[in-house]
């Protein structure tokens, strides 16, 4: 029995991953999305674009990022070997840069003068502002007023990088409202403005395009693990907010005999209202341009998400993940705030790496799996970013929980 290949099968020509994905947007945006789709389709097969992208990743984003055997953590747990894909060492401190490099180059090709983006914790805002500075483009970042207060250092970063931060006080003044506002702005200004979406969500072609820009994570990791460990990993683990680092790592392994676990943020717990687990605690629906799993009530109103990790704090997930869940290719687990903070501490203490709280969710999942797997198995974890941005948050959490 030959298994059907998953890679290259999705999305279909209309941007659907099974029933997910697609293009659920107001008519005014259709032309802009078609323009983008066409430009991306051309660029993605243009050797010059491919060269520029690779070149920027190497010299600017500091790729390849290494893989790193977490020997002491592995010993401490006493089970399967844990390897880390070190996206924390990429420029700006997370995998986010891969995507903005790609989209920034594309925006330039398309003759756009300005980049806009939404941001919650500020990570994607900083990444977009970064690339705008590098390319000499104007930049406006939409950010909820709540978040502007909570994430002052990233606001400062964006300003230093020359971006304007546009406060959004509609709705709950957080990430999804910022995304709403960015889309509204784009509707009016798409002629000279490029909208940089930060994860594998949004209307077609974003999920496909962002995945393809992020697959560098998995392409590198596959080559590296084969070189250093001599074989494929048994399990891949990544945290999933929108899902770009997870799909970036997983995608090149899709047709390999590797298990995959994506870890959602369970916040206070899946049995509470305070979590961000769209698959484990949500249901299908359409938001921000795509059909996918969402946190919503019975009336189809979107719930505010909650996680200690600002980067996972989004009420949706990329449509490709929705499909991977339905077809069972990827298992969607979850980790609570408490589990993430514990994994965070462990990586600090055993490996001298301060992970992003997002990545700490992946670690929590990996630690659980490692404990119940034999020592000769290999788990490859996407360490999607560094945790410098999270220090205050973790301290507050620890202080409140007397750790």
């Amino acid at each position: 029995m030959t298994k059907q290949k998953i890679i290259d099968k999705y999305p279909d020509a209309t941007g659907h991953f099974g029933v997910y994905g697609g293009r659920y947007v107001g008519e005014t945006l259709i032309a802009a999305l078609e323009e983008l789709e066409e430009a991306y389709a051309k660029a993605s097969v243009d050797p010059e674009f491919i060269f520029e992208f690779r070149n920027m990743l190497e010299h600017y984003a500091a790729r390849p990022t290494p893989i790193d055997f977490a020997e002491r953590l592995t010993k401490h747990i006493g089970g399967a070997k844990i390897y880390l894909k070190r996206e924390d060492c990429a420029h700006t401190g997370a995998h986010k840069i891969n995507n903005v490099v790609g989209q920034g180059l594309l925006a330039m090709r398309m003759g756009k003068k300005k980049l806009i983006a939404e941001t919650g914790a500020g990570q994607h805002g900083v990444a977009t502002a970064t690339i705008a500075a590098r390319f000499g483009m104007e930049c406006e970042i939409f950010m909820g007023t709540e978040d502007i207060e909570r994430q002052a250092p990233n606001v400062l970063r964006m300003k230093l990088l020359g971006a304007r931060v546009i406060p959004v006080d509609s709705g709950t003044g957080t990430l999804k409202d910022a995304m709403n506002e960015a889309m509204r702005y784009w509707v009016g200004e798409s002629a000279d403005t490029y909208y940089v979406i930060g994860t594998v969500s949004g209307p077609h072609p974003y999920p496909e395009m962002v995945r393809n820009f992020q697959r560098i994570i998995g392409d590198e990791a596959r080559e590296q693990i084969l070189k250093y460990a001599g074989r494929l990993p048994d399990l891949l683990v990544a945290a999933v907010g929108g899902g770009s680092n997870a799909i970036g790592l997983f995608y090149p392994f899709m047709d390999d005999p590797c298990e995959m676990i994506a870890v959602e943020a369970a916040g206070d717990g899946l049995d509470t209202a305070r979590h961000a687990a769209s698959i484990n605690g949500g249901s299908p629906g359409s938001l921000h341009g795509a059909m996918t799993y969402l946190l919503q009530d019975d009336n189809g109103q979107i719930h505010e998400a909650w996680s200690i990790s600002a980067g996972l704090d989004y009420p949706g997930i990329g449509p490709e993940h929705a499909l991977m869940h339905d077809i069972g290719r990827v298992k969607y687990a979850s980790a609570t705030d408490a589990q993430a903070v514990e994994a965070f501490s462990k990586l600090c203490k055993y490996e001298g790496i301060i992970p992003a709280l997002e990545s700490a969710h992946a670690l929590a999942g990996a630690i659980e799996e490692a404990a119940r797997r034999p020592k000769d198995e290999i788990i490859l974890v996407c360490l999607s970013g560094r945790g410098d941005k999270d220090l205050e948050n973790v301290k507050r959490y620890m202080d409140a929980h007397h750790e």
Partner: protein
Amino acid sequence: MNRIDTTFRNLAKEQKKALIGFISAGDPDYDTSLEILKTACTSGLDIIELGVPFSDPTCDGPVIQRASQRALKSGASLTSTIRLAADLRKVTETPIVVFSYYNPIFKYGLENLARDALKAGIDGLLVVDLPPEEAQPLSLALEETNIHIIRLAAPTTTSARLAKLVDGAGGFLYLISRLGVTGTGGLDFESIRSHAAQVRASCPLPVCLGFGISTGADARLLASCADGIIVGSAFEKIIEANLSHPGLPELVAELVEEFRDSLDSINSEPVGEGGSSGGLDKPGQ
């Protein structure tokens, strides 16, 4: 016959333009909203667009966003919107178009919606973020009803795409008058006129202009190039400014009358015959 089609046919006969009013369902609360709707219908609205409040209205400007938020706070939903339509239907034959984002509809269930909307006397469904490419399930669900799917066209819509939009649509074409989200102002009358003329030339449905029309003067300036005009934020502004005013429905009615008068005062070319049967007589043809 669908009430929307009847309305356009009648307006055509009277050589009048359609006045379509968007009202956020349940803003500021169910009862006031019902009163506003009733009064608006008797004051000269030809078609009601009943907005289903949504937590993430990405196609709307701040005025309708806030209206949506107020409605949600008062407990509004697609369910209550359908009930509102049914209650309104008891007292008026004015066509009712439910204006929604897709998610509340999807979550409600397309079959459920078709059944309940029909029962409530709803005439059309306008799903602002559901382009034709994604609309097949909804079309299928509505197949057995005579509820129209109303489509929007944008200033950036090509003529090739226009054909696609209109295919399977009914009632009228909602022609967005400018790039951007709902809200008042920002109109470039010259380019709207030329674009509207182009669209009408190839569109088998009545073409109504909306987004940004905030005064009787705007309406008068644009009515001649369309089959009707759509006013939304202007009504919601009045509502927002008079939330606890006991005479709120009358205040909205006054604005409806102003628009009505403006539209009726123009010396317009005759509008074509409405109806989903298509084949309208167009000026310039």
